[in-house]
C-alpha cells in the first residue's frame, strides 16, 4: 500500500513538473473537458436537484414545527456549497470519469500502447496524464458550481411546493443570501479542486500500473473508484477541519 501511495505521489510530482507543457496539450485538455461534461452534466443535474430537494424535505417540516422555517434557505444553501455539492460531485466524477481514465490508460498499458509511446520518445505523463489531470481539475470545480446552483433550486422548489414546509421562493433565497457567504462557496471550490487532483492522480496511477490483461484492467478500475471515494471522504474531514480554523 505504501509503495502504491509513493508511486501515486511521484506521478503527481512528475505531472506538476510537466505543467509548462500544458499549452501544447490544449486540444487533449479540451477533448477531456468535453468528455467529462457530456458524461456527467445530466447526471449532476438530476443528482443535485434531488439532493437539494431531499434536504429541504427532511429538514423543512422539523424547522417549521419549531418556527424556524425561514432558515431553510440558509440550511440548504450551506449544505450544498460546503458539503454535498463538492462531495457528491466528486463521488460522481470518481465513478464516471476516474473509472474511464483507469480503464483507458490501463488498457493502453496492457496492450503495450504506453510502451510504444515511450519508444517514440513521447512522455506518457505529458501525453496521457497531464491533460486528464488538468481537465478534471477544471471540470470538477465548475461542475460543483453548477451542482450548488441546481441544488439550491431543487431545495427552493420543494420548499415552496410542499404543504408541510410552504416556504416561498423569495423567503428561501433571502435567507440563503443572508447565510451563505462568498467564503462558503470558495470552501466548496477548494475542496472540489483537491478532490479532483486526488481522483486524477489515483485513477491515472492505477491505469499506468495495470498488468495482466482484461482482468487486470477490471481490477484497476475498481481500485481507482474505491480508493478515490475513500480518499474523498477522508480528505473532506481534514479540509473541513482546516477551514474551521479560519472561522
Amino acid at each position, binding site marked *: 500500500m505504501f509503495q502504491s501511495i509513493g508511486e501515486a505521489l511521484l506521478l503527481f510530482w512528475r505531472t506538476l513538473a510537466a505543467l509548462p507543457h500544458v499549452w501544447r496539450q490544449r486540444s487533449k485538455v479540451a477533448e477531456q473537458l468535453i468528455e467529462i461534461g457530456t458524461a456527467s452534466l445530466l447526471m449532476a443535474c438530476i443528482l443535485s436537484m434531488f439532493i437539494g430537494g431531499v434536504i429541504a424535505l427532511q429538514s423543512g417540516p422539523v424547522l417549521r414545527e419549531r418556527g424556524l422555517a425561514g432558515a431553510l434557505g440558509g440550511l440548504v444553501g450551506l449544505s450544498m456549497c460546503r458539503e454535498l455539492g463538492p462531495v457528491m460531485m466528486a463521488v460522481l466524477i470518481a465513478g464516471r470519469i476516474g473509472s474511464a481514465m483507469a480503464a483507458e490508460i490501463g488498457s*493502453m498499458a496492457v*496492450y*503495450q*500502447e504506453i*510502451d*510504444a*509511446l515511450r*519508444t*517514440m*520518445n513521447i512522455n506518457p505523463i505529458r501525453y496521457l496524464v497531464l491533460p486528464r489531470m488538468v481537465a478534471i481539475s477544471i471540470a470538477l470545480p465548475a461542475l460543483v458550481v453548477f451542482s450548488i446552483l441546481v441544488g439550491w433550486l431543487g431545495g427552493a422548489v420543494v420548499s415552496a411546493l410542499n404543504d408541510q414546509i410552504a416556504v416561498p421562493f423569495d423567503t428561501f433565497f433571502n435567507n440563503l443570501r443572508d447565510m451563505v457567504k462568498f467564503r462558503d462557496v470558495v470552501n466548496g471550490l477548494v475542496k472540489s479542486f483537491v478532490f479532483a487532483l486526488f481522483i486524477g492522480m489515483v485513477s491515472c496511477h492505477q491505469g499506468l500500473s495495470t498488468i495482466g490483461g482484461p482482468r487486470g484492467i477490471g481490477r484497476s478500475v475498481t481500485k481507482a473508484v474505491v480508493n478515490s471515494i475513500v480518499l474523498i471522504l477522508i480528505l473532506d474531514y481534514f479540509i473541513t477541519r482546516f477551514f474551521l480554523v479560519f472561522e
Partner: protein
Amino acid sequence: MSSERQREAKGGVPVEVRGLRKSFGGVPVLKGISLNVEPGEVFVVMGPSGSGKSVLLKHIIGLETPDEGEILVAGEPIECEEVAEKYRLAMVFQSGALLSSLTVGENVGLYLTEHRSKPPEEIARIVREKLELVGLENVEGKFPNELSGGMKKRVAIARALVIEPQLLLYDEPTSELDPLSAITITEEIVNLNERTHATSIVVTHDRDLAFDVADRIAIITDGEIRLIGTPAEVKGSRDPLIQRFIHADFKPERT
C-alpha cells in the same frame, strides 16, 4: 529534437550489450548476455519461446531496467535521457501496439505531431507516403480495430519509418501472419535496411525470416547466448541443440 542533433546522428548506430542480467520474481530470464551489433547491420535474435528474446529487446530500447550489466547505444547508456533525444530509435511491437483511440493516419503521424517537427499538411503527406511504402492505401481514416493482423503490423512498420530510425527493433514481425504477408514483411525489412542503413535488430523464431534477412544471427536458449554467427555459420553449427532448433519439423508416424 533539434535538427542539429538529427544531422549529427545520421545512419545506423552501433549497439553494445554487456553482461545483461534480469530476473522476474526471482526467476532469472537473462543470464549475462553480451553482444555487439554493428551500425547498419541486420542482427537477428532467434530462440525458442520463453528464451528471453523479447525481454532482451525491451532492454535494448530502454523499456526494462537491467538488474546487472548495461546497454550502450552509440557508446552511451540507453537509460541516459540524452540517447532518446540524440538518436532516433523505433520499435515494431509484436501486437503492433497501435493506439486504438487514434486513426491509422494519426498513429503513423504521431511522432511528428507530438514532436512538432513538421506542419500538418507535410505530416499528412509523409503519412501517406510511408503507408504506400508498406503497401497500404486509403486506410488513414480507419481505426486499428478495423484492420487485419498483417495490416496492423504494416501500419506499425510505417509508424516506425516516419521516425526515420537509426535503430529499428522488430519483435516477432511475422508471428500470426499468413505466409504471403510474412514474405511481404520480410521484404520490407530487407528493403528498409538497404534504403535507410538503420541498424535493425529482429527478434523471431521464424527460421525463414531469420535466414533471409540476417547479416548475423544470435541464438538464445534459456537466457544465454548459445551462438553468434552469420546465417551460414549457424546452419553449419554442430551444436545438437541449434541443429534441432533450426531443423525442427513435424514428422508424423505413418503406418
